[in-house]
């Protein structure tokens, strides 16, 4: 298992990790509810890290602070060593509710990030078509969001985030509004995309199975106040058939281990 994990790693020796996102002492209070307290985290480059925890643990708040969409009360977020406090071109966000423009076609929605940056129409549409194909939506370029299923809409959201060529993709419970069958297929695609795209993914989820299935690294957050309670690196070989992972012994053990840890927070 150890060997399998290392084969996917950036180097054969576990050197000090190369962090693309560094979170230092982040805290956030809403009214008198302490959502996050003193969060210190490093997100390794080229890996998929999940933020996992029960509802109310501040995982989405933390993701939105990293995205620059919410201002933290204290602490800093640095991307590639540079402190940030607003959205930037090195990060792209995938929204839980998709956030697609209903009046725009799939093509325009996917190209929207580039449109805002002033990329010429021909160039941005060419890039958008490539990513539409990449997420498996070729042939749907001229459809409107209401003509697509939930799973397909989220693929549009993912393609939009990929097309701006950010280093870090931030995904906020992207599959929570997608039905179970589509979610499975989407998770498999995400594993494949992650190997192809060489990007860093930060992924918020409340599903233990989902986190273990797709993550290189799982950050467990505990609620009230939100703090890092544990960091787990499931060493699962994802190079083979993705179906196989669900029956992998290490996968099942990790799911069980996390559940035992989280149980105390569930009434």
């Amino acid at each position, binding site marked *: 298992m150890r060997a399998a994990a290392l084969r996917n790693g950036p180097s054969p020796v576990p050197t000090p990790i190369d962090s693309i996102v560094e979170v230092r002492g982040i805290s956030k209070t809403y009214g008198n509810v302490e959502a996050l307290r003193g969060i210190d985290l490093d997100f390794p480059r080229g890996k998929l890290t999940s933020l996992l925890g029960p509802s109310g643990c501040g995982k989405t708040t933390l993701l939105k602070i990293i995205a620059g*969409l919410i201002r933290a009360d204290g602490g800093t977020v640095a991307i590639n060593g540079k402190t940030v406090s607003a959205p*930037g071109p090195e990060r792209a966000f995938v*929204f839980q509710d998709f*956030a697609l423009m209903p*009046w725009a076609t799939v093509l325009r929605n996917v190209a929207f990030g580039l449109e*805002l940056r002033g990329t010429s129409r021909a160039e941005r549409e060419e890039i958008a078509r490539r990513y539409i194909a990449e997420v498996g939506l070729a042939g749907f370029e001229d459809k409107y*969001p209401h003509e697509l299923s939930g799973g397909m809409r989220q693929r549009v959201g993912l393609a*939009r985030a990929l097309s701006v060529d950010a280093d870090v993709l931030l995904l906020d419970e992207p599959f929570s509004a997608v039905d179970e069958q589509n979610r499975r297929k989407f998770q498999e695609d995400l594993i494949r995309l992650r190997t192809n795209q060489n990007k860093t993914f930060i992924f918020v989820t409340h599903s233990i199975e989902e986190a273990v299935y797709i993550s290189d690294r799982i950050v467990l957050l505990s609620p009230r106040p939100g703090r890092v309670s544990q960091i787990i690196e499931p060493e699962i070989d994802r190079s083979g058939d993705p179906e196989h992972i669900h029956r992998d012994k290490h996968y099942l053990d990790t799911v069980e281990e996390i559940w035992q840890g989280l149980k105390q927070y569930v009434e």
Partner: protein
Amino acid sequence: MAISIRTEGEAAGLASPSSRGATGASWDQPILLRLVSIALFAGIWEVAGRIPVSFAFPTFSDTMVAFFGLLADGSLANAYLSTLQPLVLGVVLSAFLGVGLGTICGLWRTGEWLLIPVFIVLQAAPVAAFIPMVTFVYGIGMTAKTLAVIILALPVIVLNTYKAVRNVNQSLLVMCRSFLGTPWQTVAKIILPDASPVIFAGLRLGVAAGFVGVVLAELLITPTGIGDLITFHRSRADYAEMYATIASIIALSTLTLVFLQWVEVRVFRPESRGA
């Protein structure tokens, strides 16, 4: 089901997001139904005119004859030439001013507090009562008539635009910010398209109110244009001509509203076109 919803929605001049179910193949059917609806109305009119309901109530056929008579002798064209100037000017000014002011009030709190109460009062007031006052201040010319159109059309356009902009989809705003949209891009590419169905509903009401304004002005202020034609034929007891004039302005108002809806679906909300 989808077909009947579509016909109803368009006849009432309402936005019809539910029309997306109608397919291209069934396009001829709504047109047929619409023609039947118009024919039915004309038939009832004809019967009512023949009973007759009142000696001052002409039949549909007499009215049509009178309409072509008015077209032929040029009096209708002359009347519209004079009516359309303040109407078009007033409606266009109200549309741009109304959407502009409404957007500002929707985005900017101070503007909201300054302006919105004024427009709420204006909308609640029986505005026709202002028209003699307008005459008193601005005389009986083009300015007074244009002002009458604006007074009636502007409040509903401002208020609808303001409400639509205030209730813009927050998640799309966050999306635009996260993909580095500038404030101008946010207004042009997210807020206005998202608000356009409600803005256009306001524009349709505003344009209809503008027609009311110009006819009122011509009946109460200056006997010119369509108002004059109506008054003139009434005074001569040419009821068929009077009805023809009234019907013509109703038809023009309806066509304008249908055109506005076409523009909305074409330009702003192509997804509601119905595949």
